[in-house]
């Protein structure tokens, strides 16, 4: 077995040195009653070539292939990824390192994370960003818990019903054993969150909106910030498509106190939903309540600049049950990937790409409307939008699938009364030709 270097002779020599005669004696402290008393029923060990064959067979079971254009978004986006990213991020010095607890031999990871924190803070308009959370959904749950820590005695939070349904489910999972109450804010006919019920309230610790929201609708963030702050609550701004902030105002500038969302769009493939990363930042005054890992700048014995993990007194390995979160890792290589992607695009590129995404999605939106579908929400959208078809859309969807286009997410199972409503997502991977095909199939 190529991963296990010991020869029989090595093993005998080691037994002698230890003073045991066999493996049985090495495991002498494991009582008989705890023993695995049969052979594990697993497939026989495979050679590299045998594994390749097995995995190739599994790959043929995928009906949606890399040749398909995927017009589904909803928290996972098909974007172009330059080959520089997998090539450099596959370097084993970065990939096979552990958490940088020994900073002198992990300056690569540490400087990379510091750069990520900085670019993310600039993107989101916050003072501080952490080195990432597991994903956008768990980041939202952590953001609301953070709001409750800051809100001290308050026991309620509110979140918009236009936040990604899975993200809301994760929040409910996290909150289930706690004493905290979650209130859902409905959305208006224009697809934006109705925060009118906040007026007169004063016991919400935090209120969460997502923008662009699950329907792709850009929320009225400044008005929301005012209403939320008037109610004495912290404004948690979520997102699932960070590319939007290349074009739109960022949530920090619009008054958000905590900003969190999914960062998969920045250089990571869909990969059936993971790994991506939870981007997470806040205003400076809340930094001691921030969950997750942070990298800070410092100097070495000679006064040279260097980076270390810092403010660990918030974290579980020091504070144990009083920690700001139980999180003990970040998304590591995904975090550096996001930073490398932001660096590759640059400010100019990010704007250009966001604009292209916007223009192409508007093109499809308009085309579908002309083809007879109705756009459900009148508010401006980014990348994603919801349309309702007069007739059953499924036969059209099937025809498009045969032309290698995955068109639209059926929203009926997410929202009652959303029959025949579909969420479309258009990114730079969808050419005009593909979009025209969709439009003409709908017209048929």
């Amino acid at each position, binding site marked *: 077995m190529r*991963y296990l270097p010991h020869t029989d002779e090595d093993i005998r020599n080691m037994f002698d040195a230890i003073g045991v005669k066999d493996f049985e004696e090495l495991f002498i402290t494991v009582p008989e009653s705890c023993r695995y008393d049969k052979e594990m029923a697993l497939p026989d060990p495979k050679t590299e070539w045998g594994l390749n064959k097995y995995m190739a067979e599994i790959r043929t079971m995928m009906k949606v292939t890399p040749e398909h254009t995927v017009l589904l978004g909803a928290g996972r986006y098909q974007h172009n990824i330059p080959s520089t990213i997998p090539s450099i991020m596959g370097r084993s010095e970065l990939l096979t390192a552990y*958490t940088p607890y020994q900073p002198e031999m992990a*300056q690569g990871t540490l400087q990379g994370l510091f750069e990520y924190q900085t670019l993310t803070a600039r993107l989101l308009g916050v003072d501080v960003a952490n080195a990432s959370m597991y994903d956008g959904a768990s980041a939202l749950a952590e953001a609301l818990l953070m709001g409750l820590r800051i809100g001290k005695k308050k026991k309620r939070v509110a979140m918009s019903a236009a936040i990604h349904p899975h993200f809301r489910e994760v929040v409910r999972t996290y909150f289930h054993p706690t004493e905290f109450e979650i209130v859902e804010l409905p959305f208006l006919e224009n697809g934006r969150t109705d925060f009118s019920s906040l007026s007169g309230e004063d016991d919400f610790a935090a209120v969460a909106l997502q923008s662009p929201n699950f329907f792709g609708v850009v929320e009225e963030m400044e008005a929301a910030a005012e209403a939320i702050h008037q109610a004495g609550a912290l404004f948690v701004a979520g997102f699932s498509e960070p590319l939007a902030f290349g074009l739109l105002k960022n949530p920090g500038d619009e008054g958000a106190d905590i900003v969190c969302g999914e960062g998969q769009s920045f250089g990571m493939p869909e990969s059936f939903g993971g790994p991506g990363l939870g981007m997470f930042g806040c205003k400076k005054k809340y930094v001691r309540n921030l969950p997750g890992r*942070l990298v800070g700048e410092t100097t070495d014995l000679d006064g040279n600049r260097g980076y270390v993990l810092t403010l660990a007194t918030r974290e579980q390995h020091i504070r144990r049950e009083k920690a700001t979160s*139980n999180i003990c890792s970040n998304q590591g290589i995904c975090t550096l990937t996001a930073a490398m992607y932001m660096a590759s695009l640059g400010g100019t590129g990010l704007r250009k790409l966001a604009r292209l995404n916007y223009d192409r999605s508007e093109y499809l939106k308009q085309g579908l409307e002309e083809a007879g579908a109705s756009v459900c929400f009148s508010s401006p959208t980014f990348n994603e939008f919801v349309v309702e078809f007069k007739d059953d859309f499924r036969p059209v969807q099937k025809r498009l699938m045969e032309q290698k286009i995955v068109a639209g997410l059926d929203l009926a199972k997410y929202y009652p009364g959303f029959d025949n409503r579909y969420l479309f997502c258009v990114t730079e991977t969808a050419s005009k030709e593909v979009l025209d095909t969709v439009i003409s199939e709908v017209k048929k």
Partner: protein
Amino acid sequence: MKNGPGRSGLIMDEPLLWEKGKKGRNGMSIPESDVPAAALADELCGEGPDFPDLSEVEVVRHYTRLSQWNFGVDTGMYPLGSCTMKYNPKINEKHAGAEEITSAHPLLDDEYCQGTLRIIYELQNFLAEITGLDAVSVQPAAGAHGELAGMLIFDAYHQNKGKKRSKILMPDTAHGTNPASAALCGYKPVPIKSGERGILDVEQIRELMDEETAGIMITNPNTLGLFEENIREIAEIVHEKGGLVYGDGANMNAIMGIVDLKKCGVDVLHLNLHKTFSTPHGGGGPGAGPVCVVEELKKFLPSPRVDFDGSTYKQVEDTASIGRMHGFHGNYGVLVRAFCYILTMGAEYLEKASQYAVLNASYVKVKLKDHLHLAYDRPCMHEAVFSDKNQQENNVSTLDIAKRLMDCGYHPPTIYFPLVVPGAIMIEPTETESLEELDTFIEVVKKIVKEAETDPDLLHNSPSRFKVKRLDETQAARNPCLCG
């Protein structure tokens, strides 16, 4: 006497990203627009972030230079206790990166993604078989996330029985994530001191376990590298009072094919696929922390899970489930790597991996115990815990020893953990290190122990062969600079 592989190398300086580049450069292709520019209200438009503009070459050199300041498992021995820094096979990267897998959108209907669902289904079964437990969810994104899933299952179980419980038993050797995960579920940790032999004492559990207590969290083998020999008896006591037993599977690498967790009385267990199942740690993540349970708790597992009816794989949700832990299926790419590892190893080599992991740790323990103070001189599992007790008279600390090891070409062991051993030095070689590697490492540690007597300042001034010398962590925390 052998020296370690440490030498000084060619170290290139590299500024921060925004200290280089020029406006107007770009590092990746962007398609030209083929559609008309759409209208967009001015009040929605921002200025776009202040990012530097860099060319492709600038970006590639930047990250290549950064990578050269890092030490990974591929660089050398990484005996970081409790972290299981074993070799990460390259072939697994290839399969996780295959386009059919990476291009799969998680909201495709089941019929379009049978392949990705099959991997989840088979992995669920493999992990159940390896642990001896009955059902698995692969959704948790890391070990601590799996622990949280486990505590949510505890809570759901007790609420289902009609009574929420308020406390949980917590050995003092536990990872910090254990009490933090339990606290998220409103459980107050009741600390348990390890007994004289470094393992849990049955009588103490009997005294503390009551009907207000949800159960116990046990890491086995524990963080001292010792097998909790009384686990069955402890489980019986906990079960008698209506509690559940949580197994922290962080140290599963010592016991595959050797210990049956169900027979030990464990009800819920999380695994760290990035430790035991060889997926790369990525400088901190992504990991994966599947949670495994006995049949009775299956209905509470996070959803969706994947089932197979003999012809089709499908996503299923149980109404009693604690719900979703993650936006989609967890860190799926990590699952694929672990799946490939298990297929490569099979039952035979997984068991050998555990045997060799214990063999390697036992060998290091025996060879070093006359040189470094050994906290508990008992048969160890996959790791051995030493301390700086013998070096204190020369004013040399665990930290100094760790930093000197770096100059000699090794990543240091885990230090100052577990907390119950002051100045702990926790060595976990893993099974993928050869006898020659171990011997060289042992010789180097012996040399450093001598240096601690003859030249303590050499240790105090270490490391000296890296881009930076010892970094001031106090300054970083006092005046946090978290953003450039």
